[in-house]
């Protein structure tokens, strides 16, 4: 067995989802909602848009990865004045 593959650092896949807080106006979501309606896609009650960050984390400690992602979201990925975020370590 090749030594290299054994030494390769383990990578965990993770996802941070950032969404607007309830009550914050979302003009972009409204525009998307209108566009869906004009495309004839029926039954859409409302649209809120957000962001998804797919992040790769070195190591295999899930708790540590979650803590790191929360720090990243608080410090940069989300503006917690108007946005909520959700952190998932997908493994």
């Amino acid at each position, binding site marked *: 067995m090749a030594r290299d593959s054994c030494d390769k650092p383990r990578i965990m896949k993770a996802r941070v989802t950032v969404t607007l807080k309830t009550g*914050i*106006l979302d*003009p*972009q979501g409204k*525009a998307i909602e209108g566009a869906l309606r004009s495309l004839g896609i029926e039954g859409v009650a409302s649209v809120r848009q957000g962001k998804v960050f797919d992040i790769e984390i070195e190591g295999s400690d899930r708790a540590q990865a979650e803590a790191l992602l929360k720090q990243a979201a608080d410090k*940069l*990925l989300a*503006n917690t*004045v*108007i946005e909520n975020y959700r952190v998932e370590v997908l493994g």
Partner: protein
Amino acid sequence: MKAAVLVFPGINRERDMARTLKLVCGREPAMVWHAETALPAGTDLVVIPGGFSYGDYLRCGAIAARSPVMDAVRAFAGKGGLLLGVCNGFQILCEMGLLPGVLMRNENLRFICREVYLRVERADTAFTGGYSAGQVIRVPVAHGEGNYIADGESIARLEGEGRVMFRYCSPDGMVDPNWNHNGAINAIAGIVNERGNVLGMMPHPENYVEAAIGPTDGRGLFAGLTTHLSKAA
């Protein structure tokens, strides 16, 4: 006055700002690159100009707000130093947490590039001493995300403490939804922090200072700052 103008990748109004500072305040400002870790000695005004720092990636101003020079800027403001953010500069100040709230996408979803009227709410501040309270001034705006919003408590505090410096208004000074171009709450165009030494505003006073290119209503802000700093010295 010893001004410093911060420069980030993607900023494009720094030369307008430098030209105005030289023209109205009488001294060429220092241009300070974002990777610096200190401001020039003796700096008494820091200006964050407009533009599209880091291409507005992530959120407008989010990445610039976290650049190396900002520790020095935060310390400068913490000691009472005068800090002015225009347009992207206002967005950056909000992202730094030096001003409350956030600038959202304009209500009509359009980039707005036009002349607007502003009502100067008070003249007894470091930034607005060159105007009179209630005066209506004409200045340009150019932004896609200028729709100011904050939580109810922050807005109540801003209003209660008289920290709204400029509001979008009609030519005769009335606050009216038809003249509130970007949909900002309470037609807010510019605010200061609690201490009154940090001003963020969306419009560009630096672009209306020379009679050769139009109105000169922007001069008052820079003239007021110069007077304030010369008194303080």
